């Protein structure tokens, strides 16, 4: 039997059983997962700010953390080093142009999300939420996307309008939900 056919068969079997039973007909070997049990993994931040934690930070606080934990790879003031520049918005004139936060990224929430999940590269998941907010504020302020005094938190960060927000075209609109 072809894989797709088997898949359809299995799904139709499941659906027919689901209609008469509270639980699916699979082995049901998943254990219930409480929000507390999930909390350390529950780190997705969505563009509207869903998932942003309590806490806040400013560019000034971020500058000190940046110098200690980020500058080694991303260079002084985010100008780039062995890894990508975080500051600057060179115009996009070629298909291979450098994509930066300020010239390309559509949502500011992604800055917080990637800092918290992936950075520092050698020691991810060691920053506090306050530190991640402060670093986000520092990078956005260095790019002049927010003011030097602006506080980043769960309310203010999703409201930061990124310059290239409308720069995208879905490749397969019919595949989007």
């Amino acid at each position, binding site marked *: 039997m072809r894989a797709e056919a088997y898949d359809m068969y299995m799904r139709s079997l499941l659906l027919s059983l689901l209609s008469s039973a509270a639980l699916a007909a699979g082995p049901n070997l998943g254990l219930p*997962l409480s929000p507390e049990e*999930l909390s350390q993994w529950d780190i997705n931040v969505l563009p509207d700010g869903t998932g942003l934690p309590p806490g806040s930070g400013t560019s000034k606080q971020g500058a000190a953390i940046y110098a200690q934990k980020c500058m080694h790879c991303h260079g002084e003031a985010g100008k780039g080093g062995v890894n990508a520049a975080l500051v600057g918005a060179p115009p996009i004139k070629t298909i291979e142009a450098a994509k930066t936060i300020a010239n390309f990224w559509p949502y500011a929430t992604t800055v917080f999300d990637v800092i918290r999940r992936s950075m520092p590269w050698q020691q991810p998941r060691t920053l506090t939420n306050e530190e991640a907010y402060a670093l986000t504020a520092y990078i956005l302020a260095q790019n002049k996307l927010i003011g030097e005094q602006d506080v980043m938190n769960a309310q203010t960060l999703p409201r930061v309008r990124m310059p290239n927000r409308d720069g995208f075209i879905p490749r397969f609109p019919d595949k989007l939900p």
Partner: protein
Amino acid sequence: MKRIQPVAANGLLDRREFLRGGAGLAAAMMAYSVKGETLTEPPWSKEPGTTVTAYGKPSKFEKAATRTLSNPKGEPRTQHARTPHHLLQGMATPNGLHFVISHAGNAEIDPAQHRLAIHGLVKRPLVFTVDALMRYPMVSRFTFVECGGNSAPLFSPEPLQANPQALHGLVSCAEWTGVPLSILLDEAGVDPKARWVIAEGADSPHLSRSVPIAKALDDAMVALYQNGERVMPDNGYPTRLLLPGWEGNMNVKWLRRLQLTEQPAMSYYESRTYAPILPNGKAYQFYFIQEVKSFITRPSVGMEMKGAGVYEISGIAYSGNGRIARVMVSADGGETWAQAALQEPVLSKSFTRFRIPWQWNGGPAVLQSRAWDEAGHVQPTRAQIVAARGQASRVPPVAAFTSQHYNGPTSWAVDASGGVRHVYA
């Protein structure tokens, strides 16, 4: 010896006729056997061989068949390992040669401590151990996985002299076995409001990508096995999200979490990396599907033709939209075309091996393939891709990713000395 009529210009032959009778064998024998050689007993025929090992390896004479590494010292940046297509045959990529892109090395996961969590817009948030997943009903299927940046060197304004491994080594095909994701989502109880599934890995970047719920409920799989053995560590052991036919980066390795949401995450990789810039300055977003594509693996750059005579042209075709319907091959740079034979089984979203015999007359030739899939999509010409997608402003290094999702043809020019060059035709 009977002459087989060509089916297209410059020596392309009909494969069925070719298999029936030995055309052109005289020429081949001249190039490949030594006249008057006495066959003797070699050393390995005169004593017992070496001890059989617990886990086999290829012959020591096949050391060239390895992946090429972009970052062999594991410096703090992405690592690429490319599949040597020019040295492989058939449709299955051996596990040790399957391509890898790893953004922070290999996570070496103890399966006893690994968990898969499903939460968000579900009725029952659940967590699974690997042992639990191993008890679920499984499916097996061949499918290719291709990096969105595979074939990026073909965006160069001048053809880069590189072999199929360097040009197209970021695609591979394996038989994957695992649990249909739809079963696990059904058990968790999908909230009708859920439109996306955000998948996350247990590697140090915690790589995350957003998958439309329709794909997750269609043919997505939590893969546990690769070509019959457990998924390789560099391909996501012990659990990999498999999205047949969709962009490699979305097939999240070391899968540990699935959150069902109304919005996509707009993660780093979907916001930035896998959003190719278009000539008008806008960028494509959510380039999910790896579209129909083919390339010739033999002959190709790096090989030398050993005299005029009959050769088999062989290559790979695949489509993220279904089965390969047809592959046409040209030996004169696209002027005339002949239909190649497709090796069975021809499977949806899988490599399909194509072959056609070729009587090389010793003169210049330009070899090219073009594939069609069952959904009616045709592999575009390079000119069509350049018109729609642009090309790099200057000749880039061969490993650079100037753009993504190149699925145009690859052309190999054979010169009279038997050398093969990459050309645009």
